[in-house]
């Protein structure tokens, strides 16, 4: 049996585990409900305005959702002792971590996309507000721009999930895993940006380097990509940030490094 097939078996088990865990299902439902509520309350009227309304909630909720789905994936097996049982089978650490990530990723993406699709359903039925304050060309509003936001959000969720899997692989106890998970979410939401600002204020880096540094923060990189690919095409004025390529490399780097590190520590932690 190939490593890929074994990873597939692990992935299937992970996905079914999420489907059969009421707490995670409730959390996913809560996430969908919150995004829907934001869309309903904002009465956006346009996809671009909806993107603006959803951007901050998504930046907060997606990391929480991804960590909730991922931080116990490997840790739970380790604490119960089942990880040792798995290790007595011909399953490589790459297959195991890859399978865990894949299975949880499908579940996270399903929840993330469900929320964004539910939110988008309000656009055609709402009267909307004047778009002129966000874009100079109101007529360019399009579901395609919203789809770009959806795609970027999915990618952001996958990056954060990779970090959650790293936490899960490295933690030795529930308490440690929870502490690491909460710390990582806080770091994502405010820590990285604060550190970059502190570095800037301290004169350690020049203002010119700021935009590139922002690519090191997953949330900032995601935000920048949303601005560049979704809002900028409408002619809207967007804050200066890292170039799309740099931000993409930044996000991908977090995912690759996290999964690689998780693969390295999973048998050892």
């Amino acid at each position: 049996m190939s490593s890929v097939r074994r990873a597939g078996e692990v992935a299937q088990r992970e996905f079914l585990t999420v489907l059969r865990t009421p707490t995670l299902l409730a959390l996913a439902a809560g996430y969908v409900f919150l995004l829907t509520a934001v869309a309903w309350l904002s009465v956006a009227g346009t996809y671009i305005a909806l993107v603006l309304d959803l951007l901050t909630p998504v930046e907060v909720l997606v990391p929480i959702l991804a960590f909730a789905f991922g931080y116990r994936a490997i840790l739970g097996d380790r604490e119960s002792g089942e990880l040792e049982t798995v290790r007595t089978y011909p399953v490589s650490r790459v297959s195991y971590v890859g399978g865990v990530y894949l299975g949880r990723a499908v579940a996270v993406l399903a929840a993330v996309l469900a929320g964004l699709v539910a939110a988008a359903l309000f656009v055609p039925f709402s009267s909307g507000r004047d778009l002129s304050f966000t874009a100079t060309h109101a007529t360019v509003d399009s579901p395609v721009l919203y789809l770009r936001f959806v795609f970027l959000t999915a990618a952001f969720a996958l990056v954060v999930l990779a970090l959650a899997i790293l936490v899960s692989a490295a933690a030795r106890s529930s308490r440690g895993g929870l502490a690491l998970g909460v710390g990582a979410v806080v770091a994502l939401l405010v820590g990285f940006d604060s550190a970059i600002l502190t570095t800037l204020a301290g004169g350690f880096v020049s203002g010119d380097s700021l935009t590139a540094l922002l690519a090191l923060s997953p949330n900032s990189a995601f935000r920048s990509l949303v601005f560049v690919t979704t809002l900028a095409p409408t002619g809207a004025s967007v804050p200066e940030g890292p170039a799309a390529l740099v931000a993409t490399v930044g996000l991908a780097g977090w995912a690759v490094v996290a999964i690689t590190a998780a693969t390295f520590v999973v048998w050892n932690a």
Partner: protein
Amino acid sequence: MTADQSVATARSDESAETVVEVRDVSRSFGDLSVLEDVSFSVEAGSVACLVGPNGSGKTTLLRILAGLLSPDDGTVSVTGEAGRAVGYLAQQPVFRSQFTVRETIAFYGRLVDAETDVAAILDRVGLSTVAGRRVGALSGGMMRLLGLAQATVGDPPVLVLDEPSSGLDPMMTRRITDVIAGLRQDGDAVLLATHDLRSVERIADEVLVLGRGELVASAPPETVLEETGTATLEDALEKLAGDDGGVQAGIRGGDAA
């Protein structure tokens, strides 16, 4: 000596074939030496029971045999087919509560072989009637049987069982002992750690006594009794590796060393 753990790929049908060969294995955790120059072998179609006081190194030795730990020194050779050479039952086996008994074994079966006969595996340990039950609803004894079933997935020639009957009622203990006897009959080599000396007297072909990380006896039960001049294994164990941790004697294959 370089630590080495190898799995040969040939498997013979000869019943007396040595399938586990442990030579001069030592293992420490920091400054604490847990195993020191442990050597023994286990033949196919036999049951070797590892006994000794708590902290004598039994679990560490089993984890080394299962490939979960590497020895600092010495070699462990397990002869088996490519794939799963050693089946392992942890001291407190736990499986995901969201899955049924059948799904759990099927998952492990697919990790080794897409054609695993889940029904036959469950039948062997007597869990067929609860195959559709969620793991979270199993009793402690049934969970142990599920762990035993899991250990046999892939038909490994060597089974390493860590206290398979600890904390179980006499009926469940007997059931597990019967399953182990059946595995021996099928030609598997079973190495188990236990404190249940009555079960040892019943099923052991070989008793391995660990004291302070050293193997102080390795012989059939009757030989251990004879050489120690005791009537029960409990007394023999007390004499060989008592609470004071003192190693009183060495017995190898019936000869006092």
